[in-house]
């Protein structure tokens, strides 16, 4: 009886332990090492982890593709920066800002939540009608959303300083703030999957008509998930802007979208484990490649730059994975206790 209970418990919670402990260790090692370069890499790893997990909340559970999420990251980044910057810094950075915007100043935590809230608000307004779409329509509409956000960020000089960089943001995001936010997001995403909302969403992913026929309002369910996911993405944008401190709208466009989407797909978009595995694996590939790129450039073996090598290899890796394992490294399953993952994957009904 006790063994059975333990297995039940392990079955339910082992995933979180398997995911959280190694990540916490990574943060700890980076902290203890004292190496700034490593710490910066780990901070970006955790921020990307939040972005990927946020995307998983919506895309993984609903099965609807979103190419628009990085737009919410941009909104969160700018909104939180504008909230936390001092009036003087704003006056210096924005040549023709609005009076109201310039005078507001909020503490970091509030700025972060504010950034998430603005992103969630935009998602709520534009999202509701969009949730009627799925398949190709959703792809193009969310892509269009990304383009629109990008155009607005580039041309709304009063709040973004246009295509130029914005500066004067204080660096609030530390290694442990990023790590704690990352770990909390994972717990949240895992919990969300099991809530009745998450369950309804997954039901609608499997069969829209069947889900509707048992009384699930697909549009509402997707909409709530979209808003939630945009909020988390916006917070991640705020964390990023208060880490990087100087940036321009280009940071929130196609290459970042490709990075985050590929992390989720390579890991497997069906599970939170997939989001974590994908982020860690892609970050590792990325950093190794970048050091190779640097080493080659420094040694002067080749004339010219090697710009693009990382993306090239990443894209190739992604195509190979899509061909060999269309459901990602984790196959869309959660990692579970004691090495029975492959077993349960084959039996299917255990999950």
């Amino acid at each position, binding site marked *: 009886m006790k063994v059975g209970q333990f297995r039940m418990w392990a079955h339910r919670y082992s995933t979180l332990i398997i995911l959280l402990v190694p990540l916490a260790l990574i943060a700890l090692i980076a902290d203890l090492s004292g190496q700034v370069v490593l710490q910066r890499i780990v901070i970006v790893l955790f921020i990307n982890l939040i972005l990927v997990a946020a995307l998983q909340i919506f895309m993984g559970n609903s099965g609807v593709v979103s190419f628009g999420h990085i737009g919410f990251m941009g909104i969160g980044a700018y909104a939180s920066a504008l909230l936390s910057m001092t009036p003087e810094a704003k006056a210096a950075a924005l040549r023709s800002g609005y009076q109201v915007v310039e005078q507001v100043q909020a503490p970091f935590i509030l700025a972060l939540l504010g950034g998430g809230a603005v992103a969630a608000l935009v998602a709520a307004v534009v999202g509701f009608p969009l949730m*009627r779409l799925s*398949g*190709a329509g959703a792809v193009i509409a969310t892509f269009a*959303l990304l*383009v629109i956000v990008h155009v607005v960020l580039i041309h709304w000089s009063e709040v973004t300083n246009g295509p130029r960089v914005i500066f004067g943001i204080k660096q609030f995001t530390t290694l442990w703030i990023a790590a704690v936010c990352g770990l909390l997001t994972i717990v949240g995403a895992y919990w969300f999957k099991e809530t009745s909302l998450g369950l309804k969403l997954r039901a609608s992913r499997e069969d829209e008509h069947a889900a509707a026929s048992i009384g699930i309002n697909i549009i509402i369910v997707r909409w709530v998930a979209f808003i939630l996911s945009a909020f988390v993405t916006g917070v991640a944008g705020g964390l990023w802007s208060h880490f990087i401190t100087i940036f321009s709208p280009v940071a929130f466009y196609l290459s970042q979208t490709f990075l985050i989407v590929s992390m989720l797909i390579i890991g497997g978009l069906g599970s939170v484990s997939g989001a974590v595995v994908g982020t860690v694996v892609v970050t590792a590939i990325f950093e190794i490649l970048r050091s190779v790129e640097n080493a080659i450039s420094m040694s002067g073996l080749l004339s010219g730059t090697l710009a*693009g090598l990382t993306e090239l290899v990443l894209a190739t890796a992604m195509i190979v994975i899509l061909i060999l394992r269309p459901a990602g490294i984790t196959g869309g399953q959660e990692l579970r206790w004691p090495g029975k993952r492959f077993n349960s994957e084959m039996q299917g009904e255990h999950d």
Partner: protein
Amino acid sequence: MNMVNDILQFLINALSLGGLYALMALGLALVYSILRLINFAYGELVMVGGYSLLVFGAGPLPWIIVALLSVLMAIVASLLLERVAFRPVRDASANTMLITSFAVSTLLQNGALLLVSPRTRAVRVPSFFIENVTVGGLLISKSNVLSLVVSLVTLAILTLFLRRTVLGSALRAAADDFVMTRLLGVRANQVIAAAFAISGFLAGLVALFWVGRTASVVPQIGLNPVLIAFVASVIGGMGSLAGAVAGGYLLGFLTVGLNTVLPQGLLDFRQAFLFGIVILLLLFRPQGLVSGMQSTERI
């Protein structure tokens, strides 16, 4: 008199730009109609055409040969992508195919970045691309006239092909119901390869004029064409070939019109407006603005 000239000028500009847009949209819609694949890498086929112009144009070959070779390269690239990247994931979910095309697009762009140069490279274009002629007080650029004619001729030939040949009707049938087409013995690989070949051909053709406008090529050159193709094919109702062509022309008129009407401040947001329209269309008329054509498909 002046008024008439303005209108003529507008028509020529709009028809020539619209023709290019129509070719772009058709290339995207053709593959979509059969595979339900939104091919993000379509823009990179334009890029392949552009870099081919750069590479072959460096030699002593006459421009027309260079142009033909470039179009050929775009076709080859399109067929190659189908064989290497898309065929292995054809039976996977639509999302998998989509993400694959996204990855292929990134791959090719960064390949150009790495192998050629991240910077803008000047491409030799024949002098008539930058020449103008004056006809009855009307200043007309030769390249505009050329693209206008070439797009119309291309569309006419494609229409004949789709309507008068067995492969053409197989392509249209496959767009209707792919499984049923195979149940009649039409080979899936053949139909799909044909769609990709035509798609590559159209991208190559577009590349000639797209590169000709600026006489230069960059790795990101494919982005705008693919965005335009998205918009135009949504206006036309995704997957309808006639709709894509009509959507392309409509977009051409809209673009030239907005350029003349909108003040500079709002012009910056033109792309945002355009994509806003796209979202509204998807919501309220998912069958496209120029619908009603599906049942009596003209192309």
